[in-house]
């Protein structure tokens, strides 16, 4: 899933309104963790996918 201007606006509206309250903030975090990490075959990890020398030899999947 990629971010788009509309998605970003909706996301900000949520975070700046309901997201102010810890309950809704936690709910959003739980949802994002499930969507981007737990339910994904390839989990999102911010500190990953840096270049390595082995990338020069690896075949693209």
């Amino acid at each position, binding site marked *: 899933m990629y971010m788009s201007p509309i998605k970003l606006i909706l*996301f*900000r509206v949520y*975070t*700046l309104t309901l*997201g*102010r309250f*810890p309950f809704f*903030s*936690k709910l959003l*975090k739980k949802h994002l963790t499930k969507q981007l*990490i*737990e339910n994904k075959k390839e*989990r999102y*990890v*911010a*500190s*990953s*996918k*840096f*270049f*390595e*020398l*082995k990338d020069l030899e690896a075949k693209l999947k």
Partner: protein
Amino acid sequence: MEIFRQIALGQIPRILGFQDRNPKSRTYGCFDRFYWHYKLHDMSNAGFQEASLTLAIIYKNSFPENIYYKNNKTKDWLKAAVKFWLKLRNFGGSFNEVYPYERSYCATSFSTYANTEAILLAKLKLDTKRIAKIGKWLTNNNNPSLSNQMAASAIALQNIYLITKKDLFKEAAEQKIKEIIKMQDQSGYYPEYGGFDIGYQTITLSCLTHYYLKTKDTELYKSLKKGTKFLDGKIKSNGTYDNSKTSRKTQYIFPFGLVVLKSPVIGKMITGLENNEVVNPTWMDDRYCIHLTTNYLQAYLSDKNVHESN
């Protein structure tokens, strides 16, 4: 260990360039260029403020080619960095990394560890009430799926105890350490989403080693030894490793804990760094080069201090 110093020092001009160094600016001290300079983001990522610790280390430690040692400008920028970090705090004591009102456990734990360590190292005088509020938030929150964040919050709480002298933070740190030891797998790894991850294992080991050096907790030492041993045999002779089966697919090694615990992995890592074969701060993006550069400096200095005291 010279290679850690060389690589880290090479990153300092880059990291200083991230910072708003204009004292008249509203964002003086901010390290998030996407926010203060490009103005592409509508909030500043608290994670960037971990650079406070990088500045504190270069300001306080004399070592070859460190032109920032006891430099007044460096100290001003350090103070500005910590003050800006405190400004980013949410009402309840947490910090945001990705979006407003996020209350990120990761950003709160790591940025608090870095900034409190900087405060202690440079003996900065700041409002302890504001720091205590962060401590209360960390005490009341956990993320047991991720050992590295738990370890960062434990050392952050220990530092808050050292700053505020309030026992409740020391007790909260001890509690988190107990939980981490309980979570550790029999084979030695600290779980990350239920499995092992080598990069995060070394981050956890680094955080826990900092905690151990401040408390001399013997139970933790046993756990650290087990955690270090887990890595033996998993790292190739050039310091790289196969991350295809790891839970978070990281590619780096944070050396500080491994240097203090005298892991054989460090020798392999140095070989790889000397041949420019290992992911290191120069290969990383702006956000993550700060974290790893600081760890390289800590690794270099811990080894240097051991040699100087012998």
